[in-house]
């Protein structure tokens, strides 16, 4: 069968939708809704009676303007998600009392509106964007992702120039890198790679930005080496506009100059990670080199069909081995001079399997292998975000589209969404990726990695098997990716069902991980202090208990006690100081007691206030929930007490520790007995 040339683009596709003056003015009109929403939120917050409402309104107003502003640029007309998002966010702010619930609702609505805008944009024009269009897609997309993942940088009292630069400059650079990567690797791969890189820190950090920039540079240089600027992946119509442009021959010298400049920039981008952080930056540079695969002395020039040529594997392995050697050399050098190297090959592998579990079934094995080796050799400097480059490289090894790509995409989307939400107000988790993975009920580690990788790999294998069965009667075996053209009903069915199956499996896993419903004991906050040092209650009958059970002594079955609390004026306490004793009594009089300790089970509510930070002796644990107070994020903490012996209890008492300073107080937000 002779391959037919691409049909000429139709007139409607060649008219950019942003040409008219009205559309430019329309761009301004689009920004009105986010600005008005921010104004409505800030105005309401600043006039509310609750003292913390003003700062919270200012923060959430700014966050709203930022996220919806990004959505405003992204959303195709009629941009219903933008308008409704603005109204619903404002309504949520007006309707709910100040505090974590209001923050959670606003954040969730903002994320939903942004995701809707991005999805619609990608569905309508995502892969057909021209160069300018790609920038108008990826730069606001990167900015929006940054606002969601690192939204706390928008908190005005804590805002610094460095943070502002991280908030604005890094995503712009990242957006350019993503646009370049998508142009040559395909939209799906680029977004999966971005998701893999961004969940680590989370958000655009210098490490993740430079990693993606290096990969984009490698990809660009590779296309240049091939003598073609067309995308390596046949993305729908991506290269057609350039080739079909009538002005192309006339502009050739100018284009050549620009191409040379672009090559210089790309080489600079390849070197930038090393310049920034030599101990870890070389991994990003090496990943870029793996994509580039520059012609080495003595090696033959590239095969005209590089994707199917076996030599590329050898090149990639060689480069990765060189990288490993470099890692070993650096390690020895660091050991010689006593500098810590932070090499964690096991953890890196676990993270690779958790974030890109589909890398075991790649369509570009050489990239997957290189990513694996680089991940093993990556030092976690400054932190695990150094793994952004190998993880993104592993994502580039996956199928570009089709049902085989679906499981990884569903997983990446879920991971990114969970990370964004848990990184955002009011959760503000220090490690949102681990917290997201923890939602599955398992501790992030080798076991979970095996489970996730196994599930994703099985799903992909089943899909591929279904498609192969459908086609085996009439076609010879082809590369894994091409087996799933929906030419048969079974293949079409697989294409439709695989994403749903992946999503469904994820939902079921999350459902299974949920704890059994407990019995909450508090309807409002209970403050304990010197004047009121204890609180106690008879335990209620569980809801739905039969009358016969209710007629006996009322008791509650419990195996775990969950305590949400915070301390006041406790900055001076030593770590581990006993602050309260919780006792549970059975019907027979026997009781269990548990000591609540500062720094371990609870902490100072104002631990993030600058004066407390400067003078505190107590190191508070990670916060469970945060809320905006007067110029800082106030915190409450959650502690779980697995009872030594589960059973039925009739009475609970909480009493402040005897030697606690008189001004220290304990606020109990909730006590919950779980069966």
């Amino acid at each position, binding site marked *: 069968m002779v391959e037919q040339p691409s049909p000429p683009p139709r007139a409607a596709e060649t008219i950019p939708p942003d040409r008219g003056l009205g559309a430019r003015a329309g761009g301004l009109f689009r920004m009105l809704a986010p600005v008005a929403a921010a104004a409505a939120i800030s105005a309401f917050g600043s006039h509310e*009676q609750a003292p913390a409402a003003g700062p919270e309104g200012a923060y959430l107003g700014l966050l709203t303007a930022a996220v919806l502003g990004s959505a405003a640029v992204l959303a195709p007309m009629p941009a219903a998600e933008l308008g409704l998002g603005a109204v619903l966010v404002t309504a949520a702010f007006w309707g709910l009392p100040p505090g974590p619930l209001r923050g959670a609702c606003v954040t969730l609505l903002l994320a939903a509106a942004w995701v809707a805008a991005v999805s619609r944009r990608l569905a309508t024009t995502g892969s057909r964007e021209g160069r300018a269009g790609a920038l108008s897609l990826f730069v606001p997309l990167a900015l929006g992702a940054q606002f969601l993942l690192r939204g706390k940088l928008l908190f005005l009292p804590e805002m610094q120039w460095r943070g502002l630069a991280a908030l604005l400059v890094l995503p712009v650079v990242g957006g350019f890198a993503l646009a370049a990567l998508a142009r040559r690797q395909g939209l799906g791969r680029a977004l999966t790679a971005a998701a893999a890189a961004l969940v680590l820190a989370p958000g655009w950090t210098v490490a993740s930005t430079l990693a993606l920039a290096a990969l984009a540079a490698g990809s660009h240089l590779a296309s240049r080496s091939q003598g073609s600027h067309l995308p390596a992946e046949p993305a729908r119509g991506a290269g057609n506009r350039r080739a079909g442009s009538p002005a192309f021959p006339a502009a050739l010298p100018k284009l050549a100059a620009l191409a040379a400049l672009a090559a210089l920039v790309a080489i600079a981008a390849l070197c930038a990670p090393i310049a920034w952080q030599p101990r870890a930056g070389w991994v990003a540079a090496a990943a870029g080199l793996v994509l580039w695969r520059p012609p080495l002395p003595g090696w033959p020039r590239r095969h005209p069909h590089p994707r199917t040529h076996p030599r590329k594997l050898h090149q990639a392995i060689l480069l990765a081995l060189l990288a490993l050697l470099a890692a070993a050399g650096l390690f020895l050098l660091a050991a010689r001079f006593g500098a810590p190297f932070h090499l964690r090959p096991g953890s890196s592998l676990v993270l690779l399997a958790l974030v890109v579990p589909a890398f075991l079934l790649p369509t570009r094995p050489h990239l997957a292998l290189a990513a694996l080796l680089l991940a093993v050799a990556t030092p976690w400097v400054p932190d695990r975000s150094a793994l952004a480059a190998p993880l993104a490289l592993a994502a580039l090894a996956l199928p570009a589209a089709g049902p085989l790509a679906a499981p990884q995409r569903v997983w990446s989307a879920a991971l990114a969404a969970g990370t964004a939400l848990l990184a955002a107000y009011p959760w503000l988790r220090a490690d949102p990726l681990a917290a997201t993975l923890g939602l599955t009920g398992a501790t992030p580690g080798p076991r979970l990695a095996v489970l996730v990788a196994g599930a994703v790999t099985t799903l992909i294998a089943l899909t591929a098997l279904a498609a192969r069965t459908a086609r085996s009667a009439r076609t010879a075996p082809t590369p894994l990716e091409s087996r799933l053209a929906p030419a048969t009903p079974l293949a079409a069915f697989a294409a439709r069902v695989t994403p749903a199956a992946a*999503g469904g499996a994820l939902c079921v896993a999350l459902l299974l991980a949920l704890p059994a*419903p407990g019995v909450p004991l508090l309807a409002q906050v209970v403050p304990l202090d010197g004047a009121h040092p204890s609180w106690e209650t008879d335990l209620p009958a569980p809801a739905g208990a039969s009358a016969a059970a209710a007629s006996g002594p009322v008791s509650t079955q419990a195996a775990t006690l969950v305590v949400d609390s915070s301390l006041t004026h406790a900055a001076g306490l030593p770590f581990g100081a006993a602050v309260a004793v919780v006792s549970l009594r059975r019907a027979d009089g026997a009781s269990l007691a548990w000591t609540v300790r500062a720094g371990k089970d609870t902490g100072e509510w104002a631990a993030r206030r600058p004066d407390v930070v400067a003078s505190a002796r107590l190191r508070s644990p990670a916060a469970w929930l945060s809320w905006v107070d007067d110029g800082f994020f106030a915190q409450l903490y959650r502690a779980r007490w697995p009872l030594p012996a589960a059973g039925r209890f009739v009475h609970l008492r909480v009493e402040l520790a005897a030697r606690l300073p008189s001004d220290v107080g304990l606020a109990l937000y909730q006590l919950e007995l779980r069966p």
Partner: protein
Amino acid sequence: VSAWQPPARIRWAAAIGCGVALAAAGSAAPRRWLPLAPDDPFRSTLVLLPWILVALSLVQHWTARRGGWRLSAAGTAAELAALGLCVLLVLARPLLGLSGSEQPIAAGFLLVLAHRLARQLRAARPLLGRRLTGVPDAVFFVLPFAAYLAILPWSAEHRQPDGDEPYYLLLTHSLAYDGDADLTNNYARGDWRHFMARPIGPQPGDPVGPHGELYSRHNALLPLLLVPAYRLAGKLGALATMAAMAAALAWMTLRLARHYVPDHPGEALVAYALVAFASPLPLYSYQVWVEVPAALLAMLALDAILDLAPDTRAGAQTSAGARGGSTRWLVILGAALLLPLVKIRFMLISGPLLALAWWRAGRRRRSLAILALLVLALGAAILLLNLHLYGNALKVHSWEEIDPSNYSPLAYLSGLLGIFYDAAFGLFGSTPIWLLLLPAALLLLWRGHQLPVHLGFLMFPYLVIVAPRGEWYGGWSPPFRYALLALPLLGIALVPLLAERRQAGARALMGALGALTLVLLLVWITVPGWTYNFADGRTFLLDGLGARLGAAVARFFPSSVRPRAATWIWPPASLLMVTLAWWWPNRGPWKSWGERWRAWHAADRSAAEGTGRRRGQGANGAPRAAFGGGAGGAGIAGLAGLAGIAALLAAAALLPVAAARWPTHVIELEDREVVKSGGHPYPDRWVIERTSYRGSWVLRVGERLTAPVVPGGRRVRLRLSTEFIRNQPVPFTLDFLAGGRLLASWTPARERVWERVTVGPVDWPAGAPLVLAAHGPSPPGQLNGALLDRVDLDWR
């Protein structure tokens, strides 16, 4: 050789069977396996959810099979993902530790439902074809019915039956289980426990039988309708029957539209969607009110009447042999005779209906005589029965109450404006999108359309009696109770206006009012009790905002219970603004702006039209443009809609600023922004005929009120409306303070008399609140006190 395929009907039956089996299995899962407490507020919603999902899926397949558009897989996937997230949030509430998250999650479920309904309605557009004829598809009944059932568990669990509802349900219970209308044993046994937690006793005016039997003063027709479902499924069964009637009423909107606006099927679908899914109908769908079956009967009769003869003025075509027709007359007479049996006041609808039928049927004298005789006979029978049972032909009402000459024009104006504009009970207050009725009415009158004539003819006698009453707002009920009968016709009245919706102003208006309506609908459904306002001039929503802001917000919104400047400013202002905004910039001096705007968008339109051409047309040859304005206008429409939403949000941003900065002229002392150290409201909130009392606060010795004041000048004169209540023979003094500075003291001389106490003019320190403090001796027993109604501030 093609494989054998079963006939379509068998496949459809199999699909329904599979759906039912799936739904049954799906709803059994939450009962057994989901980690939910038995009293969890979402438990019954999750149990019902699979049924709703299957119903909506079958609706989609049915729609596609009948020629409708298919729903996009991406949209369905997004809805399922959002639904999955909502279910996860329901189950993960303990894990999240966010107390009070139930209502936001319920709003999330509602948003998913609204999204699905919007898409499904759009997909069902081809089912109406190019012209409305005949019987609308069953999809237009099933869709609202499924939506009403979806909200029923949440609403029914979060709001006990109220107003007249418990008595209808108790009567239903008695009819279902005792087979009689005697409620004596039901009150004694506490049968109210079957549908509510709060005990109820006989209502004032309930008849008592010769042997002490307790009957309800409410008619038994509606309870009789509810009996079968109540017997099968208890309270939820009865409420599901009401939901079915409400869905049928929505369906009747489309059926009636073929008489009035047959050439605008797309716009009729939008009007139908407003009637079915914008409040107030969804609010009534899960409650027991006679207005829903009465409206259904009235619309059935009207439809049959309009079928009697072709209507030449509207150009509508009715089925062949329309004149006469025994079935139609049966429907007309049946509805007209049943209406007074539902509630006697609906006789005021029966009369005009029969008169209209006579007019359309050829105006024969013999027919008139027969119809008049029928109505009079029925009316006389009901009145005589009432006289026999209650000793009063009008049950608890009097002839003076229904004598129009007993009411002033102001009472009529206040009642009529209240039915539409009142922030607590009015149609526009609860559902702002209905403000489009204002330009729609002007347009219909301008064109000489027959709809306003029919509407006026049907509703005029009814409104003459209802509007000036002290209880014009409908008593203890959701908004727009008494005029609910007209809702389908009001929806149809929007159709000609919606046909002229291309201009930017119309789009902006629809964007702003639609968004506000959606938000309010979310509030009314997630907090069902908030539609049950007390007739004291306050609303739960504005009260909540006032308390949060510590400022008088309600003063900017109209109230006919507590008339204020806004009550009289809003109607003319909204008429002017909405009308001008709708036709901007196509009419008037802005016409050139509109042309320039369109020129600017030439490139966008050409690109968008190209996209639109590629997307093609729907089945039945109905172009998508007929519904949504076409892809060519999407850019302009979207921008205008966004501009409308931005304007709405800007107005919202101004509200707290205005509340904090606008000078205080009146302080209603029972409002929530006034901080009270003690006392209680007077009269009691549950009092009947609440509007005949002055709403006030009882301030006793030792108590004080602190009201925020925004100064409007340097000096002010205060006038307090108050009544002294002496319970002890000791002095009583009321101090007026500006913050901590004493302005004046008042010692009342007369008791139980409303007085106006004037203070000043005095200098007013900026930022100081007004404090009213009562003091005096406090011997044992009830203390002296004063009823404080309001303070008028006259700034100099």
